[in-house]
């Protein structure tokens, strides 16, 4: 049984097609993160699910009921907005109970639900304050509470943490995760923060220009991206790409360098065509240990960027930039020559023509 199911969804703003034949099935209790570059249609999709935008074509089902024409309040969803969107003239309590009053919930029921939400989110001391007298983190908690009191099956979050500073963001991220484990609601969460996506999601949907590129678990998306866009988008620093071909079976060749692909898992057999050879900077091994890797080569450090916990070293292989992430304690300096090695089994290879994984 699916919780939210989107079928052939189209959404146009006038002549601009924002969502194109989008299909998505979300299970009960699943935490789905929508991730994508700015303007790819994440908020638009969320607004469609919430019923705040009228879809141009297609259907939306929530709990196996077709809600395509239903009002937002009748869909069994709660929504948390980026700008909190708290009603400024009402107290926190007023904000929390507004939806319940509209639904004509009896008074004592409202009281108990507000009390429960306030307890879960630890905002009891704030109940009689106005939103203007709250900090950003507290406001966001109230905004979550407003969705919480309505006892909905599906939570929609539109970049709820992006207005907060880094530390608070990390704290609230954990709180949202804890909330999900406690409530087991379905959650659809929009972000363009990769860390949020990787840590929170059961599954991540990577979107580009109104289309879902890949819908998979975070590990699968990280390790086996289906196309070059996803590979490039996920991971920080992003993946290295070497331009070459695979005319010799099982071997990748770029310039004078040949990499034996050994036990790389091909999607459908090795092809003999121009390809991108993608490799994550953090999977490269440097120094003595590199010699034991299936592939190793000598390179020169061109730029060294220390970042505390680790250091990013820019080098090149066959005149193509190649980034390597090494331990923060490593003693590589600009101009140093060093040995790097890696296991091609961890690479991602993409056909140059259609940019799909091979």
């Amino acid at each position: 049984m699916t919780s939210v199911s989107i079928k052939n969804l189209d959404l146009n703003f006038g002549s601009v097609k924002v969502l194109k034949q989008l299909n998505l099935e979300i299970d009960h209790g699943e935490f789905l993160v929508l991730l994508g570059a700015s303007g790819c249609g994440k908020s638009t999709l969320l607004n469609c699910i919430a019923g705040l935008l009228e879809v141009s074509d297609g259907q939306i089902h929530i709990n196996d009921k077709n809600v395509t024409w239903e009002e937002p309040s009748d869909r069994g969803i709660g929504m948390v907005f980026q700008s909190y969107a708290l009603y400024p003239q009402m107290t926190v309590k007023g904000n929390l109970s507004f939806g319940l009053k509209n639904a004509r919930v009896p008074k004592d029921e409202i009281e108990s639900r507000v009390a429960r939400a306030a307890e879960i989110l630890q905002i009891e001391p704030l109940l009689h304050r106005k939103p203007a007298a709250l900090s950003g983190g507290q406001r966001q908690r109230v905004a979550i509470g407003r969705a919480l009191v309505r006892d909905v099956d599906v939570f929609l979050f539109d970049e709820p943490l992006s207005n907060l500073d880094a530390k608070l963001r990390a704290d609230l991220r954990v709180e949202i995760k804890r909330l999900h484990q406690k409530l087991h609601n379905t959650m659809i969460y929009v972000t363009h923060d990769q860390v949020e996506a990787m840590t929170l999601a059961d599954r991540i949907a990577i979107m580009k220009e109104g289309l879902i590129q890949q819908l998979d678990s975070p590990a699968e998306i990280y390790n086996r991206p289906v196309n070059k866009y996803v590979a490039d988008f996920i991971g920080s620093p992003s993946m290295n790409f070497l331009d070459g071909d695979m005319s010799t079976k099982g071997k990748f060749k770029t310039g004078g360098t040949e990499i034996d692909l050994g036990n790389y898992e091909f999607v459908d057999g090795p092809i003999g065509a121009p390809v991108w050879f993608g490799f994550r900077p953090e999977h490269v091994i440097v120094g003595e240990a590199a010699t034991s890797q299936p592939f190793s080569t000598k390179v020169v450090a061109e730029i060294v960027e220390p970042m505390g916990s680790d250091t990013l070293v820019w080098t090149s292989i066959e005149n193509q930039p190649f980034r390597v992430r090494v331990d923060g304690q490593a003693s590589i300096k600009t101009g140093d020559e060093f040995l790097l090695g890696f296991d091609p089994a961890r690479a991602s290879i993409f056909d140059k023509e259609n940019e799909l994984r091979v």
Partner: protein
Amino acid sequence: MTNSSSNTTVEMTGPRGAKPKRALSPRNIMIYGVLLVVACYYLLPLYVMIATSLKGMPEIRLGNIFAPPVDITFEPWVKAWSQACTGLNCEGLSRGFWNSVRILIPSVAISILIASVNGYALANWKFKGAEVFFTILIFGAFIPYQIMIYPMVIFLRELGLFGKLGGLVLVHTVFGMPILTLLFRNYFTSLPEELFKAARVDGAGFWGIYFRIMLPMSIPIFVVAMILQVTGIWNDFLFGVIYTKPDAYPMTVQLNNIVNSVQGVKEYNVNMAATLLTGVVPLVIYFASGKLFVRGIAAGAVKG
């Protein structure tokens, strides 16, 4: 120097802290001088009016209009309010005042109510034809209303409202609509859209959102609209003359009739008092709500 950022006292010479300002710089003299002259220029007529209204006729005949009143008398004010004659009746301005009040209150209330709902619907509920409707309204704001006077006369006659206070209320409501709707629409568009969305998710309907969410956040713009309407309607002369009969004339029309009446001597003091009395209402409104007015203008009226 291992700890340069600690709280040890550091030797400092030369300029430090806020730059001192001289009170009597040439620049200040210039600014305040010009402001003073301009203020006097605008206040002088008011002074003349007040001074004249407090003088008796013999004093006025001396012809010294700038001289302060020697013998202060409130007789002209009383006469202007309750005894001045227009044609046959000699009830003074009081009847016009009450007529104006009876016109003002419903016109202001109805026009603001309708225009705010219009603006809210246009800003937040993207209904079919909203764009067309809005364009027509904007167009209406720029048509000189003199063009519509005669059609309006016929329209009111057909409704049976011609010459009645109700007719004038209708006219004021209709003519205030374009600019007020524009004002409210712009204000409501400037409010965060997510608030509206949140209220919809919370199950509030068209009126629920209007009364519970939008209205409490829009007090400044309501004040602006009220001031615009009160001054506009109170100062209106043309519509009052055209669409009402003598016993329903608003204060401005009656003032005109008193000042321009040709019988007997011209009582300048009574005329001045009558004029001041007529201008009092908009003035009071301005003074009472000046701050809110500025805030409302800054908040919504100029944003688009």
